[in-house]
């Protein structure tokens, strides 16, 4: 048996599964996105029309699509760096030799990741309630007027970002913690002997050594945050004034609420293209920096 044939044989089961459960649906969705598949087409396939790129053109002309794209980008641009910074900060603190009760804090910080988003959202809605919420009560003690966290179009997205960061930072924290533990101690020792302070040690030892981990976390977090859906779905239903409606939310409404599957597939592909471009950009940037 030729080695290449053996290789293909061993890879075949995985390839078949990928083809069946990834490429086939993607191709089907691509085909859907150039039709106007909807509830009428479900009744009788004769009602299906081929519309070429009309779905895409329609979307690009739809102010709501741009609005949701803006919301999503805002969520990604603010949320991802914030989330990574918080995760890294928490990981560094937990890794510090001065830390106490590490096991407790590690569990406490990780706990939000494993709780269900719906249950947590209910609690957050109470915390951020305009008139009865704990947050506004705390603010009122220091003389700040009540903020309508989830009802004001300017505040709703920041609140969602805060919620998402709090909910998710524990996961990246664990990855960072593993990365930190793999940095050899003698590097820090050498840095200290060279007279580097804490900040310089962090900047010139910790960060470069974490480079690949940072890249991985960056890509994972970014692709996750582009798919913003559950948080606004349970907290605000996309409101107020559609200020928290994300691209994925738009897709959900088009597809599963209104059954315009053609249109929904087009949304999905636009988001897919966008995510591919951004992730490739990040990889290209990292490669140039030599992190890979």
């Amino acid at each position: 048996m030729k080695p290449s044939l053996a290789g293909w044989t061993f890879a075949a089961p995985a390839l078949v599964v990928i083809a069946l459960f990834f490429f086939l649906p993607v191709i089907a969705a691509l085909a859907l996105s150039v039709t106007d598949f909807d509830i009428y087409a479900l009744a009788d396939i004769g009602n299906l029309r081929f519309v070429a790129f009309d779905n895409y053109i329609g979307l690009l002309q739809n102010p709501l699509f741009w609005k949701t794209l803006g919301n999503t980008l805002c969520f990604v641009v603010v949320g991802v760096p914030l989330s990574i910074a918080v995760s890294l900060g928490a990981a560094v603190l937990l890794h510090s030799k001065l830390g106490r009760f590490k096991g407790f804090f590690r569990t406490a910080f990780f706990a939000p990741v494993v709780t269900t988003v719906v249950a947590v959202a209910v609690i957050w809605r109470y915390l951020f309630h305009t008139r009865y919420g704990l947050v506004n009560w705390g603010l009122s003690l220091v003389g700040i007027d009540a903020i309508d966290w989830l009802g004001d179009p300017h505040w709703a997205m920041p609140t969602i970002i805060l919620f998402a960061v709090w909910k998710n930072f524990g996961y990246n924290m664990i990855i960072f913690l593993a990365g930190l533990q793999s940095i050899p101690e003698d590097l820090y020792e050498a840095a200290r002997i060279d007279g580097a302070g804490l900040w310089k040690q962090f900047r010139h030892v910790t960060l470069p050594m974490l480079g690949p981990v940072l890249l991985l976390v960056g890509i994972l977090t970014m692709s996750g945050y582009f798919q913003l859906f559950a948080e606004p779905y349970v907290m605000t239903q996309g409101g107020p004034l559609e200020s928290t409606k994300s691209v994925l939310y738009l897709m959900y409404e088009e597809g599963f609420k209104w059954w315009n599957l053609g249109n929904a597939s087009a949304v999905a592909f636009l988001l897919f293209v966008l995510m591919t471009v951004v992730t490739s950009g990040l990889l290209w940037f990292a490669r140039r920096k030599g992190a890979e």
Partner: protein
Amino acid sequence: MGYEGEIVAQLLPEFERLNPGIHVDLQQMPVLSAHEKLLTAYAGNSLPDVTPIGNTWIPEFASLNALEPLDDEIAATPGFDVDDFYPNVWDSGVIDGKAYAVPWYVETRLPFYRVDLLHEAGIDKPPTNWGEWRTAMAAVKRKVGSKRYAILLPLNEFEPLLNLAIHDPLLRDGGRYGNFRSAGFKRTLAFYKEIFDNDWAPKVANTAISNVWDEFGNGYYTFYINGPWNIAEFKKRLPASLSNSWMTMPLPGPDGPGASVAGGTSFVVFRTSRHKAAAWKLIAWLSTPAVQARFHGLTGDLPPRRSPWNIPRLANDPYARAYRIQLERAVPTPKVPEWERIATEMRLVGEQVANDRMSVDEAAAELDRRADRILEKRRWMLDQKPATGAQP
């Protein structure tokens, strides 16, 4: 579906006893996911025999050709008196002259109001038209000050605006185009805007009201437009000291008593069913006045027929009286499958208007634009097969 699905389980053993040989296999569904589940079941060819569905879904499932017309069974069933049903409620299930659905229970929306607060504001009679309502809301607002309001119209619900607007046709040309630039709708939208402009209603979504019953009790708002299920909720949840301080009233209209949306839930038999005769027997039994009266006793849901309303429990209920009056004036929503989506767009545009992001004229034009876009496929469908009449 939902709560009714749990309650109906108590009635079914009697039906099975009366009809040996028929075994009812009850499957309960949460209301919020029922629509998706039924559509998925349709696509997967695994629909049940009979299901109560929301009245607004009937045109959609009829256009899918998923529903069995029931006219023959209705005619063949002695004692099944169509004229006993509220005409517009019955009409919700009639598409192109064929009856596809039998109403199970009805709902429409009308204001719950605080008698005491209205009295304190100097109004002793509930308003019957928009002019009086305006006066009442302004008086209440003057009385309660800036922290409280006259009315609650949650911005994330389409029902309040829809109920105010339903007295005018919202679509035109047989549901081909939106009719939102009509004088009637603009008048409604202007009234809606006026309520927010004058701060009579808070610009909030219902998610910002943690508990509508408590807030009603607190006097955060005096009027609250909602459905009949809230009669039982208010009775249960308001403190005893307030038990005489609230009432229901028919919905005021622009120039007198107003129309409202004939909502509710109706039974349908799916075309794919293999037990249609048994399914019809179940519907007919659940629709008898006696069973409807019992069902009302168990759930508080309002019967769609007039005769069960004469039982003392309903006839003597002062809170139900307004609904009894209102139901005679209730009208169905436009019978196009796209309606829920158009209603949602109406809510979104209404939210823009309430927040002063759009004028009434801009909003009306925008709504027509959106409705016409949504109805594009329907127009194409209607042009394709003008003669068959299979489509609603």
